[in-house]
């Protein structure tokens, strides 16, 4: 009996130990560094110099390679995700900010904001294989989980472009609200979610028809509409809830992904920009650009549990199990 209880405790602690073994990587735009956070203790473990003005960040599907856009060096760097040793550079084009990997992890799509282009990179060959002309100031970019579509959102053209991954050509365009920022597919690739920073809205697009099915407005008591500038989006794998960072409104909106009602707003740090789930999707990490911290949201209780100072201008976030 005592033994079994002991075992249980041991098991639980082992389980939670495993569950929490993740590392949270945060690009620090003004520190030219990567912050590495251990989320249980809520501690910044270390800060690694990474290159000038790091912004977009992603892990390879096998979690071994970390890709970071060092914007002012006009490249996307590859790092060993354990040792942070630089493995190579990718020809991203000028001033790379955001990029996306395909599910296999052998192709990368980069937004070139100043040139109105999307660059397609063959990662194994470290070569740009195609440049696709898109609208003015492309920013948000994502690949559908079924690898059919690359979506590029152009901020000044106010469109999302549907790029066919087979042809690397635009197959369709959907006009959205002013200044679209982030784009994200649901796990089943059926819906595309788009945030529009200027309009303060979230738009849901049907991936089959490319038509808008829903437009969601955010309203936070005591915050003027101008401050509500939605940016980063994540949607849980069961499509129960989506989470939207509201920028200078300093909140994350919790959106019911079935009814599209906004369930609540969670107060995080200042100018919350990008979001990432823990691997078990029990926690959400947010980068808060102005308050220089990372907030941790416990998703079961839907509460903000911690905020951890990480460095100057935290921008992107990626989580390694």
């Amino acid at each position: 009996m005592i033994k079994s209880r002991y075992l249980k405790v041991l098991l639980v602690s082992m389980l939670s130990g495993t569950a929490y073994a993740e590392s949270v990587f945060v690009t620090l735009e003004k520190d030219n560094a990567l912050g590495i956070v251990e989320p249980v203790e809520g501690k910044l473990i270390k800060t690694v110099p990474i290159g000038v003005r790091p912004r977009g960040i992603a892990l390879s599907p096998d979690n071994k390679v970390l890709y970071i856009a060092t914007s002012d060096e006009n490249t996307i760097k590859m790092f060993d995700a354990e040792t942070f040793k630089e493995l190579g550079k990718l020809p991203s084009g000028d001033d790379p900010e955001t990029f996306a990997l395909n599910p296999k992890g052998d192709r990368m799509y980069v937004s070139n904001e100043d040139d109105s282009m999307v660059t397609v990179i063959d990662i194994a060959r470290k070569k740009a294989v195609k440049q696709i002309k898109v609208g003015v100031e492309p920013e948000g970019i994502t690949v559908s989980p079924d690898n059919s579509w690359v979506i590029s959102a152009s901020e000044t053209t106010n469109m999302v472009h549907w790029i066919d991954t087979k042809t690397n050509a635009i197959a369709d365009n959907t006009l959205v609200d002013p200044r679209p920022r982030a784009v994200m597919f649901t796990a089943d690739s059926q819906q595309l979610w788009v945030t529009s920073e200027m309009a303060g809205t979230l738009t849901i697009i049907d991936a089959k028809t490319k038509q808008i099915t829903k437009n969601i407005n955010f309203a936070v008591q005591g915050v003027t509409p101008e401050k509500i500038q939605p940016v980063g989006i994540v949607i849980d794998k069961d499509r129960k809830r989506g989470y939207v960072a509201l920028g200078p409104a300093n909140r994350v909106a919790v959106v019911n992904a079935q009814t599209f009602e906004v369930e609540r707003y969670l107060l995080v740090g200042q100018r919350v920009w990008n979001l990432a789930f823990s691997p078990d999707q029990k926690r959400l990490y947010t980068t808060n650009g102005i308050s220089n911290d990372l907030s941790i949201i416990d998703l079961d209780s839907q509460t903000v549990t911690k905020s951890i100072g990480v460095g100057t201008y935290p921008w992107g976030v990626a989580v390694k199990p």
Partner: protein
Amino acid sequence: MIRSMRVYFSMLVRIIIISQLVNVSWVYAKGNKQVVNIAYLTQQQKPPTILSNLDPFIDNKGEPGAELAIKDNDTTGQFTRQSFVLKKFVVPVEGSVVDIYTKSIAGKFDFVVLNLPAAQILEVADLPVAKQAMLFDVATSDDGLRNAQCRNQVVHILPSRAMRADALAQYMMKKRWKKWFLVVGTTPEDKLYADAIKRAAKRFGMELVAEKIWEHTYDARRTAQSDVAVFTQVDDYDVLVVADEQGQFGEYLDYRTWNPRPVIGTQGLVATAWHRTHEQWGAVQIQNRFKEAAGRWMEEQDYAAYLAVRAIGEAATRTKSNTLKDIKGYLLSESFALQGYKGVPLSFRSWDGQLRQPVLLAAPRSLVAVAPLEGFLHPKTELDTLGYDQPETLCKRSTE
């Protein structure tokens, strides 16, 4: 043999005709786009007497802004099958703007960007042939044009003098610089700027402890040190507010006042629609794109012309139309939201046609603040804490 040759020949002709037909239909498909024609009207300016050799005279302020916007509109247009054409009319110094408008623009263009002084904007707007057009004022800050002299078909892109003065006043209030010393130049524009400052002082409960007209020599490079020190011996004040729109003496005030006081207004800390120090909210991108295209920094008129042409583009895209009725209707509606690199959507005030926008407060090498400042509240939008609000307007604009 001859017969077969003839058959061959006729076949050849047929092939040529067909290939031409195909060619024609291809051109047609390409030319099948909806075209939005925009005129840009300006007049060459005589270079003014220069105060110093620091800044070169720019003779095309506005034009590269309009051109960049046409390019942006066209990039969008390739996906919406719309095409945007800008036709520029640059009237020589001694030429007549009214003549050019009447001859070359009237009846041919529904959308006209005017980079002209206030008096000429009024002249053009009052032409009977200009009633059926939408005119975009990208040059003036004139409060008269936005009040008693407002015209139905004119919209104003740059912030008015009143908006600028209110923006400065909000900042001074925040800093508790409540006692102002106003220094005014001798041009009519300086007087208008000073009027706007006085209006703002009243609005925000500030005290104008002294007001003086600067009548000293304009080539003050040698004498400023002594002139300004003597000139600025007035009752104690917190801040010197200068009204010198042409920049004939304002630059000489800073560091030379009798008491050490900051200078703001048309020099020192300025209120402006655009500034090279502005980098937030994606502004870096347009600064870079503009510099690459124009080979210089973006000036206020460039920004205004960019916004005017982008506004037309945005309305054409949203309404899928190129008609005056649809585009004007959309531009003046509540749905219109223009992205102007200032963090909030821009729109037009229905009561006077003024573009609602944040105003930048900039020092020569740093952006100091963006008005409206935090804490200045408004029941509808904080942007309307700047300039003439609906209850104050003297503009009787029909809202057809």
